[in-house]
């Protein structure tokens, strides 16, 4: 259902980025890059507002004509950005949240992998398979 999924490290470089229509990848890379500004804005806004319960899910970052971009930040300031096709209006907030939760769990598993050095690009096949399962349900 997602068209592009990206995992961005705390220092704002990509740990993992993949998109389905592979002929126009650069456009998605650019969208993810611009969405990082919005993510930072939301994070700093949350810090100033005295909210008791802070959520990891950031919600819709910004909509474009064809796509919607959603964001999620973990406790270690690793950001997940998901680009979804706008025409797929059946996707509800809850489903996006559950997709992010699956992403977070898989990312935690990658972190706990002794063969993974924190900060490297994610090359785990299990993570790849999980992301494929999220992207494959495109119309």
């Amino acid at each position, binding site marked *: 259902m997602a068209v592009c999924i990206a995992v961005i490290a705390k220092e704002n470089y990509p740990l993992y980025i993949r998109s389905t229509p592979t002929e126009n990848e650069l456009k998605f890379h650019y969208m993810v890059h611009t969405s990082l500004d919005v993510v930072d804005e939301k994070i700093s806004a949350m*810090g100033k507002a005295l909210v008791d319960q*802070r959520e*990891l899910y950031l919600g819709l970052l910004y909509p474009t004509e064809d796509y919607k971009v959603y964001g999620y930040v973990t*406790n*270690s300031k690793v950001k997940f950005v998901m680009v979804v096709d706008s025409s797929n209006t059946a996707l509800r907030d809850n489903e996006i949240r559950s997709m992010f939760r699956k992403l977070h769990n898989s*990312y*935690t598993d990658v972190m*706990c992998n002794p063969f993974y050095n*924190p900060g490297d690009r994610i090359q785990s096949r299990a993570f790849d398979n999980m992301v494929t399962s999220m992207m494959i349900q495109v119309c």
Partner: protein
Amino acid sequence: MADAVLFEFLHTEMVAELWAPDADPGSGGKKKSWSVLEGLGFRVGQALGERLPRETLAVREELDALKFLCKDLWAAMFQKHMDGLRTNHQGTYVLQDNNFPLLLTMGSGSQYIEEAPKFLAFTCGLLCGALHTLGFRSLVTASVTALPACKFQVVMQKS
């Protein structure tokens, strides 16, 4: 309850192995073992820092991170909370544990005090690693005055 002792036994063997007599003699060898243990703890702390805080954004500032260490991390590792947390409000925190499980089996009082610090190296690394995942660079040292009580001193580094 049996799960807790599994880690304690593993930890005891780790320390024994790294301080085995056929390691390089002299202070060079000892320092290397200490940093190996700290490195082990660091990587484990990094992974725990990712896995433990669930769903809600737990850490807003330094003090929240320290509270997370004292409550959540300590409860997950040693099934108890830290007994005391003090700070000078300028980046230095002292975490006091009056009944540290990894030292509990060694006896109480002043016997074995010289041997005790090496059993704290892994835990120092653990605290440092967890703080690193949460976004804080720190320096952690440990001290023992009377077994099984021990203190961990965390000094936050300004990056």
